[in-house]
């Protein structure tokens, strides 16, 4: 498990690096090796999910071929079972969508069940959404079933963001903050309370938890969606 966590953090660091400088280069270099290193790399791609292709989504450019190949391999190697947990099913769906640049592929998987989102109290709702923060991207993500569920409960998500900050759970805070930023950048803008101070909150989360590349990834993605930071979209 430690090996996989390390590989996921390395991959997230690469994504953060590309988000920061806006370079055109593949993020999944280590995973492109052979043998055991490749198996571990593909597993890391499966865990990070659609975020492997995040730079191409946020900068509106074509994804790198090497990254596309690895995401395809991860989608193939780790199909969700019939009774797969919510995060497994939705993250797989998000990867398939990301491979098709947000469009529903012909014969592709249907949206997994989202009824849980209306039933959960706001604390586990925020936890679950933060696990699915890779879906929090403009357009596709916010109009998916999970995105619509988030848009229906922006105040609960804002409460969850504050709770996560107070608990010093930086990963959950960054994930919830990314959802709030995605909602504000799309058709559901206006639902997030202004009194939340999302921009300062994101900056705080980045300062306090940014050593964890997964936190940095979500926080940078959120800031890019807020339009105030990062390189100019090409």
């Amino acid at each position, binding site marked *: 498990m430690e090996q996989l966590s390390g590989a996921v953090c390395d991959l997230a660091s690469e994504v953060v690096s590309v988000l920061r400088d806006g370079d055109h280069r593949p993020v999944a270099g280590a995973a492109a090796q052979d043998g055991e290193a490749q198996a571990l790399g593909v597993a890391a791609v*499966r865990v990070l999910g659609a975020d492997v292709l995040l730079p191409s989504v946020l900068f509106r450019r074509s994804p790198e071929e090497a990254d596309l190949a690895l995401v395809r391999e991860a989608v193939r190697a780790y199909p969700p079972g019939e009774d797969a947990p919510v995060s*497994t099913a939705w*993250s797989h769906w998000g990867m398939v969508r990301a491979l098709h640049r947000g469009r529903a592929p012909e014969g592709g998987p249907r949206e997994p069940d989202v009824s849980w989102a209306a039933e959960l109290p706001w*604390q586990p709702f925020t936890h679950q959404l933060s*696990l699915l923060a890779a879906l929090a991207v403009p357009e596709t993500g916010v109009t998916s079933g999970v995105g619509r569920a988030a848009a229906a409960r922006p105040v609960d998500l804002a409460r969850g963001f504050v709770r996560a900050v107070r608990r*010093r759970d930086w990963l959950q805070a960054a994930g919830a903050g990314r959802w709030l930023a995605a909602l504000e950048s799309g058709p559901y803008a206006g639902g997030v309370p202004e009194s939340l101070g999302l921009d300062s909150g994101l900056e705080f989360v980045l300062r306090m938890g940014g050593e964890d590349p997964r936190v940095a990834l979500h926080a940078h993605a959120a800031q890019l969606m807020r339009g105030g930071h990062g390189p100019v979209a090409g």
Partner: protein
Amino acid sequence: MSAYESETRDLKSLETDVDAALNPAEADGIFRDSRECAGLLLVVGGLLLSPPAPRPKK
């Protein structure tokens, strides 16, 4: 154990790790206890504000 069996076992264990990484339980919160912080502040403040220790007269 053959190389094939060993590889199969490694892949199975990787699958388990991926499932666990995708579905973690909520992390335990780390809280600062306000009363403890206030107590510590009072002690440090008291030490800083206390008069200097008496010195022996020459």
